[in-house]
């Protein structure tokens, strides 16, 4: 095996050009999702076996129409390709174009070609090309362009082997720029080439065009470039317009003779017919809401069985470990902190996987862009963008991927508002809390013969979250000032059957990312929580047994009851218990006592901790048995009133608190990274907590 590093190959192309299909064919499950250095844009890389002995690292870059970026997503393409010192700068670029939509797709190719990186052109969707009567002479085209041209049907995997072969061989590569940048601004380009020791005209030209957004430059270098732009009268927009027109002229020249267009027979009947239904005045919205309803139903209905199974497995594992391992602090940390902590993460996999399967299908089929199309005008009234619909829907599973999905929104203000309000959507972590509390305060009765009251309450909480998000967005629209224009120039792709392999890989990858990214934080927090709940100041915890024994010696207690009393006493005197008592005056107006206070504090890190904390607080050994917790909570008496602790007032107050409060460290962390600062996550934390507090206070007073 050779010692030298394996070649890096970047995949670039327009959105909907079949890039992810090709990526999946090349790498299969050898994929890794991470973040590009410094930004939260998904970085998909994978290892491809070019043949038995040669491997290559494939980097999937975000889909873009041009090297001039409009969104955070697209910026990455130039950051990596335009800078030879970037650690991800590829050895070869594979440009994948939708051959059935030739000209527009070739624009990006001509730009990348001029950056002078060895380039391979993949003509995808040749199956559609064949059907439409369009004909492409790829040999002639290859000769014209001076790069290998490979016809492909990525959906069926046809042409992938030819591509691998081409990548293995040294490419016969004659470079002559397609757009002669130098002729438009010779002096400015020469100065840049000298200053930064760059060889290619177009790279230098791009430095002049885009230095303000170039991450690899220091402020000083940016200032130097700005001076050059001014000194040489380098009029960026005019040149860029000229460049685009020049490139299209060159494209027309290249394809003259090798491509015969015949648009009259494009098989778009299906797309036209389906659009008539999906964007219909009434059916359009009806179908959209029906699909949403189906997604919710599936998340809740299908996920239940695997979630119960995971829950059972982890509690069995904890029991088995505590029976097998010698007793001690480490075993307790393992069985009470780490194993339940991991279980708390893993249990969300089914819901996340189902949700992402649906989102992948909606995107694969082309329906998602119709949703954006349908909702844009409504969303705009609230300071959002049609594209905000996607994060808001995803927010129902988890705010973290949802916030990452906002990066396709080009307008900064609209993107910020979307990031700000997405955590108000009821995520899956709120579901266990909703379920338990609703069961405590809402009778399990049917309103008519089909509407279940508890179901209505659950639906109401989701609606409440949605309304809060929309209204907050509208308020932010009034507060935030921005001169930046809002765009919605978006391709409406033709409808396609989803590729199930892609859906499966998306499900797998997103679940994996969730477990490892969000998991790390939840895992750390559950250990910290365990420590806080297990230790207290002084010797109060150590003396717990003595104290409880002394107090209860006259009572006839079973061993289990005694054990529970001791655990309960320990918790009360642990650091967590002391915190709970400290904040009691603050939460008393909401109808909570110190025990709920502990749950509030612990679940500030992540909401799903609530149920586990409740279980510990009410001194039940097994945190996994919801019915037991529920029964215990039901029997809990409020000493002030003599009635149940979880009355309608306290219960609804808690429900509303959990619907609104920003109780998720991971979300705060992701907002910090997406907005590059603490300002927005802190405002978000304060705003949501205040909203939760005030609303819970109102709810408590209405119902008590």
């Amino acid at each position, binding site marked *: 095996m050779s010692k030298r590093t394996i070649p890096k190959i970047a995949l670039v192309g327009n959105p909907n050009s079949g890039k992810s299909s090709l990526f999946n064919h090349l790498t299969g499950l050898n994929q890794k999702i991470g973040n590009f250095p410094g930004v939260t844009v998904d970085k998909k890389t994978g290892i491809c076996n070019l043949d038995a002995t040669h491997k290559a690292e494939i980097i999937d870059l975000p889909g873009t*129409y*041009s090297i*001039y970026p*409009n969104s955070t997503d697209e910026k990455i393409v130039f950051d990596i390709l335009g800078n030879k010192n970037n650690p991800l700068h590829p050895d070869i670029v594979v440009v994948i174009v939708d051959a*059935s*939509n*030739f*000209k*527009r797709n070739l*624009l990006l190719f001509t730009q990348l070609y001029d950056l002078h990186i060895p380039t391979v052109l993949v003509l995808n969707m040749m199956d559609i090309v064949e059907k439409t009567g369009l004909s492409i002479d790829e040999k002639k085209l290859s000769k014209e362009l001076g790069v290998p041209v490979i016809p492909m049907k990525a959906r069926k995997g046809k042409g992938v082997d030819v591509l691998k072969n081409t990548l293995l061989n040294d490419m016969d590569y004659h470079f002559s720029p397609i757009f002669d940048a130098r002729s438009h601004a010779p002096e400015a380009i020469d100065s840049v080439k000298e200053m930064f020791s760059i060889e290619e005209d177009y790279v230098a030209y791009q430095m002049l065009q885009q230095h303000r957004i170039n991450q690899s430059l220091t402020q000083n270098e940016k200032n130097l470039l700005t001076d050059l732009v001014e000194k040489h009268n380098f009029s960026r*927009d005019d040149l*860029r*317009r000229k460049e*685009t*027109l020049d490139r*299209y002229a060159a494209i027309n020249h290249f394809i003259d003779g090798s491509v015969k*267009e015949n*648009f009259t027979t*494009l098989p778009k009947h299906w*797309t*036209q017919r389906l*659009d*008539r239904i999906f*964007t*219909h*005045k*009434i059916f*359009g*919205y009806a179908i959209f809401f029906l699909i949403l309803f189906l997604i919710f139903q599936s998340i809740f209905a299908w996920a239940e069985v695997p979630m119960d199974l995971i829950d059972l497995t982890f509690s069995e594992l904890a029991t088995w470990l505590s029976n097998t391992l010698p007793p001690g602090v480490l075993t307790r940390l393992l069985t009470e902190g780490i194993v339940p902590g991991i279980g708390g993460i893993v249990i969300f996999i089914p819901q996340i996987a189902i949700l992402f399967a649906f989102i992948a299908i909606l995107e694969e089929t082309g329906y998602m*862009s119709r949703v*954006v*199309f*349908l909702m*844009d*005008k*409504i969303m705009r009234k609230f300071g959002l963008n*049609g594209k905000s619909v996607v994060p808001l829907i995803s927010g129902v599973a988890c705010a973290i991927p949802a916030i990452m999905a906002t990066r396709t929104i080009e307008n900064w203000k609209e993107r910020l508002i979307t990031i700000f309000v997405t955590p108000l959507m009821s995520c899956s972590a709120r579901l266990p809390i909703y379920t338990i509390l609703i069961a405590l305060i809402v009778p399990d009765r049917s309103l008519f013969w089909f509407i279940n009251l508890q179901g209505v309450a659950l639906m109401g909480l989701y609606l409440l979250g949605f309304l809060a998000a929309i209204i907050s967005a509208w308020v932010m629209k009034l507060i935030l000032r921005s001169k930046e*224009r809002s*765009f*919605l*120039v*978006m*391709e*409406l*792709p*033709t409808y396609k059957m989803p590729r199930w392999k892609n859906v499966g890989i998306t499900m797998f990858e997103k679940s994996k990312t969730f477990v490892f990214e969000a998991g790390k934080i939840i895992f750390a927090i559950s250990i910290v929580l365990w420590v806080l709940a297990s230790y207290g100041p002084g010797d109060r915890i150590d003396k717990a047994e003595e104290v409880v024994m002394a107090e209860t010696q006259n009572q006839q207690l079973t061993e289990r009851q005694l054990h529970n009393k001791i655990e309960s006493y320990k918790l009360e005197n642990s650091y967590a218990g002391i915190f709970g008592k400290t904040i009691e005056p603050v939460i008393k107006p909401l109808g909570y006592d110190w025990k709920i206070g502990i749950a509030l504090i612990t679940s500030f890190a992540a909401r799903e901790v609530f149920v586990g904390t409740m279980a510990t607080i009410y001194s039940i050994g097994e945190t996994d048995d919801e019915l037991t917790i529920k029964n215990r909570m039901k029997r809990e008496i409020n000493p002030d009133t003599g009635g149940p602790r979880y009355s309608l007032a306290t219960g609804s107050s808690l429900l509303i608190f959990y619907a609104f409060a920003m109780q998720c460290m991971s979300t705060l962390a992701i907002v910090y990274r997406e907005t590059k600062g603490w300002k927005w996550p802190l405002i978000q934390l304060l705003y949501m907590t205040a909203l939760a507090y005030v609303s819970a206070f109102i709810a408590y007073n209405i119902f008590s």
Partner: protein
Amino acid sequence: MNTRSVVDLTPGESGIINGFMDDTLSLKLLEMGCLPGQPIKYNFAAPLGDPICVSVSGYNLSLRLDEAITISIQ
């Protein structure tokens, strides 16, 4: 001078792109294949009348009305 824009078309009608009335938007529209001299067809509008769907250089594009009005046609 009486310039017509894409929004003056009726659904199903086509025009030839003449130029752009907004400099910033024209950069993006050019890159998306809206080239002077190319035919552009108004397909349909979203249920609330905005955005609209047009066909240009062989594919469908959605635009808001205030974006479409900047594309002048012959």
